[in-house]
């Protein structure tokens, strides 16, 4: 279980452009055959990164220019498809701390947030602008400041959008909700007693 405040994410951007990038692309289904999430990182975007023989197809994640980056820049509806947490788990294990997109699929956003991956949204024009900057200067320093709602790319600062709930959860270190849920155990047990249905 992860906890602890997240006020800032610093690092470099890797652009993985395109809309509707689904969870099957983020982690192909055949790599879900596992009983732990360990080791999923190396299979992130596998089919777009490698051919059948395992030769690199030059995906941005493997591009020397962007190697070691920890922030993904992408398009609309990122993470659509399956509810499987394997997708954000794979990204996290591939070293991703944050994702900047035009929009996110809902379950993916929830799963990522629980894991402490910071997901922020920006309009298309800004994403395109940042892409140009990053493509020209891949080493440029990027800071996502959750306290001030700002994204700084080099000397340019942008205001991003983020679900306020999620922002607060990162700032207060409550993005993994289990401890909060456990606190209400007596109330849960009381509610269960009065629920109109059970299985016998």
């Amino acid at each position, binding site marked *: 279980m992860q906890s602890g405040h997240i006020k800032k994410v610093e690092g470099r951007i890797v652009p993985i452009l395109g809309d509707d990038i689904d969870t099957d692309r983020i982690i192909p289904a*055949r790599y879900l*055959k596992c009983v732990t*999430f360990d080791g999923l990182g190396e299979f992130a975007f596998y089919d777009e990164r490698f051919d059948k023989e395992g030769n690199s197809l030059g995906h941005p994640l493997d591009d020397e220019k962007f190697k070691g980056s920890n922030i993904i820049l992408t398009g609309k509806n990122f993470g659509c498809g399956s509810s499987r*947490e394997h997708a954000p788990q794979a990204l996290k294990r591939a070293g991703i701390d944050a994702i900047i997109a035009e929009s996110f699929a809902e*379950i993916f956003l929830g799963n990522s947030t629980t894991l402490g991956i910071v997901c922020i949204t920006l309009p298309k024009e800004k994403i395109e602008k940042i892409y140009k900057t990053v493509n020209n200067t891949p080493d440029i320093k990027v800071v996502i400041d959750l306290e001030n709602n700002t994204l700084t790319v080099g000397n340019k600062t942008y205001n991003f959008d983020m679900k*306020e709930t999620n922002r607060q959860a990162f700032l207060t270190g409550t993005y993994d*909700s289990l401890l*909060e849920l456990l606190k*209400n155990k007596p109330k849960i047990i009381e509610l269960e007693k009065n629920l109109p249905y059970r299985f016998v």
Partner: protein
Amino acid sequence: MGKTLLEKVWEIHKVGSISGGRDQIFIGLHLIHEVTSPQAFAMLREMGLKVLFPERTFATCDHIIPTDDISRPFADPLAEEMMQAIEKNIKEFGITFFSPESGKQGIVHIVGPELGLTQPGMTIACGDSHTATHGAFGSIAFGIGTSQVRDVLATQTLALTPLKVRKIDIKNKLKPGVYAKDIILYLINRLGVKGGIGYAYEFAGEAIESLSLEGRMTVCNMAIEGGARVGYINPDQTTYDYIKGREYAPKGKEWDKRLQYWESIKSDPDANYDDVANFDAHDIEPMVTWGITPEQCIPVTEKIPEPKNDIDKEALEYMKFKPGQKIEGTKIDVAFIGSCTNGRIEDLREVAKYIKGNKVAKGVKAFIAPGSMGVKKQAEAEGLHEIFMEAGFEWRNPGCSMCLAMNPDKLVGDQISASSSNRNFKGRQGSPNGRTLLMSPVMVAAAAIAGEVIDARKLLNIK
């Protein structure tokens, strides 16, 4: 002002408000399978936690199980490892398991309804996005990630942000040869794959009410493909008739009590919706996807459209289609009938009705994976399997099969499949460049017989 079903069910299950404007919601029924649960159990062990209400969680195995030889150990050692993990977990934590030996195994979203576990007015969660299926009964059912599976196991609750409700009203009945699958593909095409984000979809109107429960499940199943985590249909006599007599259905006096509850949670006639969208069933034709998202679909009679955006261009390139090309006549290599969308007994009956006396085209691999052992048994009792095999279809064992290809059923190379499943994503059916055309089971059967995409109404004389 009246309330929607979503508001009523939410209120009944609300434990309280928690941080960040979220509610803590009790989950009445928790379904698990072998792919998204082992890590959750591992987390429980790590934290020294127990399952709070083991009697509210039910397990099955569906994603990895082979559909041909299911003798143990499985040929795939990774599949065997996952199977052993779920067996160990259910034993240790005291959870009911619909194993292959129990005769009740199958796809989680088929098994729940079939055994009468799924009922109106419930909150249902499962580590699988197609949990939306169960909304067909008037329950609030949604897919969750593995950390949330852990949360439900440990607390039987989830931290959830309230949803808005969009009522989708479809007037008139479907024309012959047009099915529930066509409704949902049509709606996703109109409302978009992102259209449902932040919403629960309430499906209503004559087209929906005149569907069987099986058809309703098909519609709700793919609500997630339209971006809505939840899709539901108000319960009615069709719902109650479906549930009655099933293994976990309430009995005797309890039935009457439960019926009262079910009636009470329906959306009020004066309920307040955040949005309403109106459609006419007469506008819906048999649909076929041509791209790499379910939104990219057209009536079988139409031509592949000009690309409107980057994802359309990407789809055309991946699928090797040209704009202006007719979708009808596209040669297929594989025909797959099954999955949580269309692996139910009604789907198989409908297919059998039309393929009798026909033969699968030469060179096409056609197979049917029933959704559960219950469906398989029923189909065999009705002799449907003989019709399928006679026509040249392989008759398999239940599981998710080639829908996501976590078992040995896979496309090879850039093969094209006609599929009754729910996702046409790149690589979805097991080959990184395999191509999927989604359509109704009857349209898949027609494609299998013709060896190419064809209007089933024409080929099979559906009037």
